[in-house]
């Protein structure tokens, strides 16, 4: 019951200030939020910040060194195997990661939360059906199936988003189902029932608002997972089609030249690592701030 008490407490205006205060004291949350803000700004301002067009080839200046390894400031991060400016590609690659991660998580969220709330609220047969779907999703070889679907439908940003979203929703389901089961027994739900509210308006007005903090935490983690899934698909050659610069695709392209220019692999991989670690730290922070007792 402790978890629910804090959730209900959060509705008041004063506790919202308390939330913000706790968030500002949480180092992981602050670090994560700061890194995410910088990367989102990079993605958003890429057309202004990028010194070159990310598709512009210059075969006379291939595999140029980055500035710290004796390269020039014209290409601060050097150039790739086609002589394209690596910094520009990195900046535009941030767009892909952010867009795919966020949109795929939205799709997964809609599927998982709908199923979780239905199963948790109605129980019985509905719940049995939902848990069966969950068992299937858990056993599904997502990378294999995702790869096959993207390849056969035809790779594009939209297809990658839809496929990743459709294949990743189990965590949303598990968490909202358990939380709904707890909320459904609370007094205000009984009160709404007594007043004659129909079931879907109870779900919409009474149940869902009490799940938002849980959903937000899972959503954050799922954005990170979706970003890694996109990178893996693109790395394997069945994700974002070239010449669009996805960080996963950049690693795959850099791999062929890795013996001469290791940073072609190191830079986009480190960018991915930094973005996902920031997202996960922000998720941990959100969890600690909204439900401190659920930390362990």
């Amino acid at each position, binding site marked *: 019951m402790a978890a629910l008490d804090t959730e209900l407490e959060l509705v008041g205006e004063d506790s919202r200030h308390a939330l913000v205060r706790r968030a500002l004291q949480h180092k992981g949350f602050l670090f994560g939020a700061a890194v995410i803000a910088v990367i989102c700004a990079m993605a958003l301002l890429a057309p202004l910040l990028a010194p070159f067009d990310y598709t512009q080839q210059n075969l006379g200046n291939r595999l140029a060194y980055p500035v710290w390894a004796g390269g020039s400031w014209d290409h601060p991060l050097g150039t790739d195997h086609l002589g394209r400016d690596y910094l520009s590609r990195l900046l535009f690659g941030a767009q892909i990661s952010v867009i795919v991660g966020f949109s795929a998580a939205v799709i997964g969220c809609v599927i998982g939360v709908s199923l979780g709330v239905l199963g948790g609220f109605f129980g019985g047969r509905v719940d049995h059906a939902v848990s069966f779907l969950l068992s*299937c999703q858990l056993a599904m070889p997502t990378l294999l*199936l995702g790869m096959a679907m993207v*390849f056969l439908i035809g790779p594009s940003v939209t297809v990658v988003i839809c496929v990743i979203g459709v294949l990743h929703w189990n965590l949303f389901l598990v968490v909202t189902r358990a939380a709904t089961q707890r909320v459904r027994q609370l007094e205000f739900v009984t009160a709404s029932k007594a007043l004659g509210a129909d079931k879907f308006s109870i779900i919409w007005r009474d149940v869902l608002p009490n799940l938002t903090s849980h959903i937000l935490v899972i959503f954050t983690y799922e954005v990170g997972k979706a970003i890694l899934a996109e990178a893996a698909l693109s790395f394997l050659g069945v994700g974002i089609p070239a010449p669009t610069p996805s960080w996963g695709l950049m690693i795959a392209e850099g791999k062929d030249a890795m013996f001469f220019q290791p940073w072609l692999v190191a830079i986009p991989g480190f960018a991915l690592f930094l973005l996902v*670690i920031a997202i996960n730290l922000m998720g*941990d922070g959100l969890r600690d701030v909204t439900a401190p007792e659920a930390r362990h």
Partner: protein
Amino acid sequence: MLIYALKRGALALLVAFTISLVAFLLLNFATDPASLMAGDEADIADVELIRKQFGFDRPLYVQYFSWLGSVFQGDFGDSLYWRSPVVDLVVRHFPVTLALAGSSILVTILVAIPLGAAAALNPNTLIDRIALSLAVAAQAVPNFWLGVMAIMLLAVTFPIFPVSGAETWWHFVLPAFVLGLSSVPSVMRLTRTGLLEVMASDYIRTARAKGYRGLGLLRRHAMRNALLPVVSILAVQLGEKLGGSLVTESVFAINGLGRLAIESIIGGDVPTVQMLVFIFALTFVLFTFLADLLNAWLDPRIRLG
């Protein structure tokens, strides 16, 4: 116990076949296998001929049940790309992937369980913090990138390990480490929370009062209960290693099921992809089923409850 096992087994099979149905529908809606087989150059007449010859003109449900029927007779059809029975292909590629999955789960166990135990026994100390930070980092690192970086550092710059291949067990060290590391965060966290909970329980206090200390206390009393949930998650992780083999085998050029899967997808070989999805799902449900049984055997509360 028998009834429990039968129930769980039936559910596991049902899950595997549902996934095969979903895969079948997704693959068939997404593509036209006949034109894939015929290639880009083929004219419409050729495509129609192939469609008739391989039975792609029949309604989807007829195709699925005919596939299901042959599966029960042990016939998974022929690969369109390699022109050989899919079963032969899978049997040939399976041992390497099994060795990779097994060795990587060994890495997970050897790293995650001692680390989780050390963290739980010293909560809120430096050890605990290092263990948790490692988990956060391992969760965020792209697996394929780690593989490429490991090759660059430990096979090229410092040539300790071979760059690629699977000839000797020495070849498996890097891939197993890279693939195994991806499961460390979840297993480590579960060991830590499980042990933290157990160490606070009454029976541990009793054992302490009777004079048990250190490893004896851990081995005889604490670990037995703390590791129950870890058994389940290890089975899940072992099942996921098959999926992970796609990336790892591609990075280290290991010719196992993952490589076969990638080549089948790119070759538009729908029957082989269909079979692999089924095999991967079946292996996953089999492992989790065995873990359920093992847990029931280890824990009478499940067996009798």
